[in-house]
């Protein structure tokens, strides 16, 4: 697909990093995505606005907004978009770019993601996504037991909370695969 966008390198960057991302240039600004979005009211800019801003090359504002971080990946926008733009995947791309460029101001969200994958990269398995123990230890050691919100002790008593994930057997193999993938990703970005 042709992506003539008047030399907008930010738009190109987003498109390149997203499988199927070239459809982004077809955005009609119809607002279906924003209207479908459960997090919409709490976002700095609605998904529709984010795409207008991306097309306008407003990289700083886009990458420092909370919008991609408040995306819950519900895919409502994606299935409803009349132009079949892979919106949810573009939100993932924007998060990735925000981290790469150090532009994000949503430290809490990206810290959470980074801690989570830290586990995956060391154990091949993760702790519970919704029970981010290491994340809580890191940010808020005193709150570990009451978890800030809710549950804590009850989860422990019901045996539902693990503190360290199991480790897979062939961790070396997984590490080699991930290292290689990171190297390829770097080549691509250069």
């Amino acid at each position: 697909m042709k992506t003539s966008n008047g030399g907008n390198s930010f738009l190109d960057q987003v498109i390149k990093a997203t499988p199927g991302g070239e459809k982004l240039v077809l955005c009609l600004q119809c607002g279906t995505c924003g209207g479908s979005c459960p997090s919409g009211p709490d976002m700095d800019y609605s998904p529709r606005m984010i795409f207008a801003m991306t097309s306008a090359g407003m990289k700083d504002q886009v990458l420092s907004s909370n919008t991609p971080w408040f995306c819950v990946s519900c895919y409502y926008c994606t299935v409803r978009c009349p132009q079949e733009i892979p919106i949810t995947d573009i939100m993932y791309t924007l998060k990735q770019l925000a981290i790469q460029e150090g532009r994000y101001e949503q430290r809490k969200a990206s810290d959470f993601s980074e801690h989570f994958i830290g586990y995956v990269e060391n154990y091949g398995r993760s702790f519970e996504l919704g029970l981010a123990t290491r994340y809580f230890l890191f940010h808020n050691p005193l709150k570990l037991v009451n978890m800030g919100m809710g549950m804590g002790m009850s989860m422990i008593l019901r045996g539902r909370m693990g503190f360290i994930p199991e480790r897979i057997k062939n961790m070396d193999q997984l590490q080699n695969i991930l290292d290689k993938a990171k190297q390829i990703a770097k080549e691509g970005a250069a």
Partner: protein
Amino acid sequence: MSTNSGHHYGYYPGCSITKNAAAYGVSTDAIARILGLHLHEISDWNCCGASEYFSINQLPAYALVARNLALAAGEGATEVVAPCSLCYVNLYKTDKNMRLHPDLKAKVNRALDAGNLHYEPDTLKVRHLLDIVVNDVGYDGVAAKVTKPLYNLRVAPYYGCLIVRPDTGFDNVEYPTTMDKLMETLGATVVDYPLKAECCGGHMTQISDTVALELIRRLLHNAAEYQADVIVTVCPMCQLNLDAYQADVNKRFGTNYHIPILYFTQVMGLAFGMTPKDVAIGKELVSADRALTKITAEPPEKPKTRKRDKKALPMPDMIE
């Protein structure tokens, strides 16, 4: 004959099942035994990255997921079955995007090669456990095993997002009904409520309690409005959010919800005559004990259909 004929199910349990969602795992094994479903756990499977790895770096995220696909294919699986919606969508998306984007496929396979693995997209069908139950076992196959129907239990099927979106072709993306029919098959009274495919808040409980608790509140409110005794889920994340944060919702909004959140496999087990303990009921934070006492031995009375009044105005004829 085994339900597996022609299928080799590579089972991808996912990390949650090893701990938080152990009840899902236990009840899945229990119903699989009864239904004659053979789920072969993929040996040495790894985490799918949940919703987090794709946020950090997409290529390693795809490679992480693809290792599981490669392992399953290597074990002769024809399909991969995931009980967790998030695992399901990641596995599905990786297979699909590798198929549609040759560049991605080449890169992922270059990475896999570093671990002496390879995955040819489309080798496997990625399917959710619910899909296997309703389509491969089928409603009739399930009905044949029901010995203790769940009469008069008002069940609200909760699909959440990722089992139906993005469009995997398994059920309607906006108004899914497969679990409704399954619950009906078990004898339960199905609560058809509008928010059954809305978001549970996902990982937002860890990032913004304002966003997460409001999303959870909406769902509980809607199910309560329709007088659900229990909400039934297909995903560990959904179960966790609605169950473990229900008390926080009550505190924040001054509400008094007490709706137990069970896995669909747990209620299937009950209908198959197992005890609550057999299907790990009791692990939920909002206890299901009270709700389960609503189950009766007799089916609910059918609402009487009124005869048409002879003198009533004629109904319009339907034109074919």
